[in-house]
C-alpha cells in the first residue's frame, strides 16, 4: 500500500492535500496510519488468526488455490476500478464487460478460430466498451455513474444475444491457460493479477499518465488549466478498466470451462468498489493506491473465507463484510 498520492510533481497541488488542523499530532498520526494501513493490518490479523485457528490454512493448496485464486479476479478488476476512481469516476459496467468478453472469446474458440485471435478479439471488444464509457464521460460530460450504468444494463443483454443466452462449454487448453494452468505450481490467474498490479503500480507511480490521473481526479479544472489533457486521461482510464474487466471475463470462462452470459461477472462492480473503498481510497478522486485495491480484494475474500471456515453462513459473512466496509469508511472520515 504505497501512498502514491503523497508523491511530488503535478499531483501535489491538485489533490488539495490540505489536512485539517490537527487536534493533536498523535491523533492525526493514528488516523493517517489507520487509513493507510487499516486494510493491510486487518489482512495480517486475519492471516495470523487463520494460521493458528484454521486447520490446513498454511498450505499452498489453501493459500494459492483457494484464497488467492478466488481473490485474483476481484483484484484485477479492482485495479482498473481504482484508476477510474482516481479520476473521480466510477465504472459500474465491469461485470457486463466481463460477460461480453467471455462470450466473444468462447464463441470464437468454439468456431475453430485460433485461441490467440479469440483472446485479442475479446480484449479489443472490452477496450471498445471502455472507450464507450470514456467517451460519454470525457467528451460528453455525462456523470460516470449514469454513463457506465448504460453499459451495465445493455452489456449483459449484448453478451446474452451473442449466443442466445445459452451456456457454451469449453475444452481448449490453450485458450483456458489463463484460468486453468498452473506454471511453477501457481495458478495462472494469480500470476496475471500480480503482473497487472505491478505494471499498474509502475504506471501510476512513474509515468506522466499516472500523475495526470491524480491531477484530473484532484481538481479537473485546475488540471486542465495546467495543461493536462483531462479528457484523454479519463478516456484512457475507462479503457484500462474495460480491458482489465475483459481479461477477468476470459479468466472466469476459462476457469469454469464454460461461458455463461447470464452469470459471469454479476455483482463484480460491487466487489471491486468495496475492495477499493476498504483500502482507504476516497471515491472523490485524486488518489490511487494500486496495492490498496489488491490488499482490499484479498482482505475481503479472506474475511469471507475465514467466517465460512468457522461455520458462519455465507449470508452472515456478507453482513459482516458490509459492517467492515462501513467501519473502514468511518476510519477514513477523520482525514477527509
Amino acid at each position, binding site marked *: 500500500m504505497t501512498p502514491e498520492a503523497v508523491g511530488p510533481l503535478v499531483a501535489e497541488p491538485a489533490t488539495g492535500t490540505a489536512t485539517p488542523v490537527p487536534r493533536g499530532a498523535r491523533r492525526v498520526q493514528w488516523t493517517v496510519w489507520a487509513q493507510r494501513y487499516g486494510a493491510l493490518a486487518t489482512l495480517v490479523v486475519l492471516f495470523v488468526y487463520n494460521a493458528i485457528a484454521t486447520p490446513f490454512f498454511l498450505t499452498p493448496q489453501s493459500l494459492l488455490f483457494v484464497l488467492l485464486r478466488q481473490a485474483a479476479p476481484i483484484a484485477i478488476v479492482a485495479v482498473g476500478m481504482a484508476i477510474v476512481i482516481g479520476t473521480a469516476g466510477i465504472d459500474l459496467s465491469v461485470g457486463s464487460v466481463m460477460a461480453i468478453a467471455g462470450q466473444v472469446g468462447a464463441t470464437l474458440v468454439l468456431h475453430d478460430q485460433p485461441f490467440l485471435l479469440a483472446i485479442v478479439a475479446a480484449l479489443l471488444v472490452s477496450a471498445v466498451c471502455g472507450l464507450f464509457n470514456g467517451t460519454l464521460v470525457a467528451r460528453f460530460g455525462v456523470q460516470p455513474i449514469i454513463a457506465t450504468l448504460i453499459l451495465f444494463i445493455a452489456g449483459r443483454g449484448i453478451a446474452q444475444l451473442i449466443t442466445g443466452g445459452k451456456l457454451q462449454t469449453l475444452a481448449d487448453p490453450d485458450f483456458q491457460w489463463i484460468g486453468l494452468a498452473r506454471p511453477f505450481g501457481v495458478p495462472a490467474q494469480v500470476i496475471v493479477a500480480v503482473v497487472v498490479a505491478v505494471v499498474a503500480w509502475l504506471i501510476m507511480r512513474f509515468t506522466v499518465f499516472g500523475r495526470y490521473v491524480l491531477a484530473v481526479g484532484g481538481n479537473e479544472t485546475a488540471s486542465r488549466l495546467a495543461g493536462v489533457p483531462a479528457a484523454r486521461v479519463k478516456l484512457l482510464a475507462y479503457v484500462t478498466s474495460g480491458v482489465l474487466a475483459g481479461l477477468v471475463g476470459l479468466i472466469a470462462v476459462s476457469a469454469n470451462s464454460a461461458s455463461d452470459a447470464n452469470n459471469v461477472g454479476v455483482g463484480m462492480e460491487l466487489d471491486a*468498489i468495496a475492495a477499493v*473503498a476498504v483500502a482507504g481510497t476516497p471515491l472523490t478522486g485524486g488518489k490511487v493506491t494500486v496495492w490498496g485495491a489488491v490488499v482490499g480484494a484479498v482482505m475481503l475474500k479472506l474475511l469471507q473465507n475465514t467466517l465460512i471456515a468457522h461455520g458462519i453462513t455465507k449470508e452472515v459473512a*456478507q453482513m459482516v*463484510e*458490509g459492517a467492515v*466496509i462501513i467501519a473502514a469508511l468511518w476510519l477514513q472520515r477523520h482525514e477527509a
Partner: protein
Amino acid sequence: MTTTVTTPGRTTPGRRVRAGLLLQRQGALIALVILVVFGALRYGEKFATGFNLSSFTGDTAKYGLVALGMTFVIMTGGIDLSVGSVVALGGVVAIKVSDHGLLPGLLAGIAAGAAVGVLNGLLITKLKLPPFIVTLATLLAIRGLALTLAGTRAAVAAPGGFQKLGNWSLLGLPVAAWAMFLAFLVGAAALHYTPWGRQILAIGGNVDAAKLMGLPVVRTTFSVYVLSGALAGCAGVFLGSQNGSVDTAAGQGWELTAIAAVVVGGTLLTGGVGSVLSTLVGVLLLQLIFNLIVFENGKGVINISSFWESVIRGAFLLVVVLLQVRLVKRRSATGRPA
C-alpha cells in the same frame, strides 16, 4: 409532466432553459404516449385493456415505488443503492409476519424497509459517510440479512390472506397499482407544497446555502433515506404477495433500474432539480418496452429475444442522457449553474 421544479434560491431560469427543460420532460411523456398508441393500434384490445393493463400496472408498481423513493434521495444529491436488498428484506419479513394476518405483514414489511432507511440515514447524516459506499455496504449486508431470515431459501407465503393483497383489484387495477399512483400523487404534492419538499430541492441545489439558511438539513436528508427504505420495503411486500414467495435473487439490480427510471424522467443526478411525476413516466416507459416485446413476439411475425429488452433499455437511457447533456450545456451557456 407539468411538474417542472427548479431549486429555490437559484435565479429563475431563462425562457430558453425553461423551454429546454420542458421539452426534455415532455420528451419522455411524448415517447410514452407514442408507444402506448402504437401498442393499442398494433395489438388492439388485448394490449390496451383488461388483463394486460392490470398485470402491467401491478407489475410496474413495485419498480415505481422503489423509483419514487430514489427520486427523493437523488434530489438531495444522494443515492440509495440498498433498495434492491431492502425489497428482498421487506418481502421476506412480510411473508414471515403474514402468518399473523395481512395487515401486520404489510406493516412489518414496510417497517423493516424503514429501519434500513434509518440505518442508512444515520450513517450518512450523523457519521457523515458518503451515501454511495454506505448504501453499497447495506446492499451487501441487508441481502445477507434477508437470506438469513429466509433460511437461504425462497420464502413462501401461506396460501390465502397475504396473497389476496396481490390479487385484489379495484376498478380493474390491482391494489399495488393504486398504491403506486397514490404514492406518486402524494409525493408530487409533498415536493411542491410542503416545506419538506422545498427543503429537499434546496439541499440538493446547494447544501451549504441550505445550511446557512437555517434549513434542517440533517433531518430532511435523514428523512429521504427512511422514505426510500419504507417504499422499497412496501415494494417487497407487493412482490411477495403477487408471487406468493420471495426468492433469493429478489430485487437484485433494482437499484440500478430505479436510477435509470429517475434519469429517464429527467431528474439530474447532481440533485436540486427533479420531478416526481416524470419518474413515474420513466418507470412506465422502461417497463412498457418489455411489455411491447412480449406482444410483438405474441404476434408471431418476428421473434425478438427477451435479451433485447436490456439492450433497448440501455439505448433508451443513452439517448436520454445525451439529451440531458445538451440541456445542461445550454444551461451553462446561458450562464446558469449546470
